[in-house]
């Protein structure tokens, strides 16, 4: 068979496609990777909330609601992505998540509730405390259940 430019391009395209699909498949099966992605979104959504708190941006109830809702959704998603044995590797999940499952679940529930309360904030006076509670719930869980950086 003569290798034409077209067959070469086809072969190259196929291998890239296959590799991509394989990579995506791996990511989909890997809860540590998925929860990491969810947490990255949480962190991104926290930024506009922080900007309001340090007065880099004006208080805007719509912005608060949108970002707090995203945080809540992503926390719920992440909470379901801690099956037993999904620690190790690049994951910073501590073994305590599974040895103290009730404590971990409670910490997650507190964070999800705090995000819900944040989404309901419509006046600036309540904003500071709602953010403290939400950020405090992140800290509480990270202090107990997240390893230091590798």
């Amino acid at each position: 068979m003569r290798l034409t430019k077209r067959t070469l391009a086809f072969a190259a395209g196929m291998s890239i496609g296959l590799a991509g699909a394989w990579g995506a498949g791996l990511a989909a099966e890997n809860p540590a990777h998925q929860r990491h992605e969810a947490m990255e979104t949480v962190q991104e959504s926290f930024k506009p909330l922080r900007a309001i708190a340090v007065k880099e941006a004006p208080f805007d109830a719509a912005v608060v609601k949108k970002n707090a809702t995203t945080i809540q959704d992503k926390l719920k998603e992440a909470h379901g992505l801690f099956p037993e044995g999904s620690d190790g590797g690049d994951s910073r999940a501590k073994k305590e998540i599974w040895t103290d499952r009730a404590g971990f679940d409670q910490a997650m529930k507190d964070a999800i509730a705090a995000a819900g309360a944040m989404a309901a904030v419509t006046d600036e006076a309540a904003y500071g405390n709602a953010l403290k509670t939400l950020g405090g719930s992140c800290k509480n869980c990270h202090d107990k259940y997240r390893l230091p950086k590798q």
Partner: protein
Amino acid sequence: MRLPSRRTAAAIACVLVVAAVAFLRLSQADPLPASAIPAHAADRANGEVLFHAGSCFACHKPPDGAARASLPSGGSPFKTPIGVFYPQNLTPDAETGLGRWSEADFVNAMTRGLSPDGRHYFPAFPYMAYRAMKVPDILDLRAYLASLPAVTAPAPRHRVPLLGLARRGVGLWKRLAFAQAPFAFASASGGGSWTRGAYLVNAPGHCGECHTPKNLLMIESLDRYMAGGPHPGGEGKVPSLRGLVERKKYKDAADLALALQNGEELGYKDISSGGMGAIQSNLAQLPEADVRAIADYLVSLK
């Protein structure tokens, strides 16, 4: 095998005896006498500042769910490669706390790592840093602790192999470790806030205990001062505190001060985990000027 001659046996016995005597002498406690403690009218409020600056409560906080959990009556087991240590009760209970300690006892614990009965403390209790504290500050801290309600809470015995012998070993280790001069805060000269920060970070704050890597002798390696390294808990790393602004970790000293005061409550995501969350909770209770002083000093480390 032929038995050694009587003469060889005697020589071996002599060497052993000399070695044992040398070990016992070199590892002996060397406490400050009570007469060396200056007269001082204690300032409890300053003592409370030092209590937070030293994050005493990070280690001496009783485990979750314990009664009177807001008092420094013990602590969670402190796991190290040498063994497991149980932080002591710092409340003024006479039997299980510091109730019977004299001023000299407290100063000896803080600056020489000695118990009132002359045993060596393991350096998991960071006296290597505290020995750079000013004695009046130490006495103020003692006055603050003495003002807390007493809680009866005996600390379990440390789980270290050959505990008694290991303690004497600490005595030998101290001879090497103390030979390295303590942080010379008096010669620090970068201005009021910076100098205050240098003191808080290096003496009560004992930041270097985790952020400065240790050499093979478990002594802080000063050429890698605050450069970060393996986490003492065994998993993960402790970040470097050098070049915090240059490496874009924080915008400036004001940003770092906000991070220390608020941590993740303001979305500073790198200030929890590995024990730093508990430290940050303690530092958040310092007066604002002291937090800023710590930040001013830290951002100056290049």
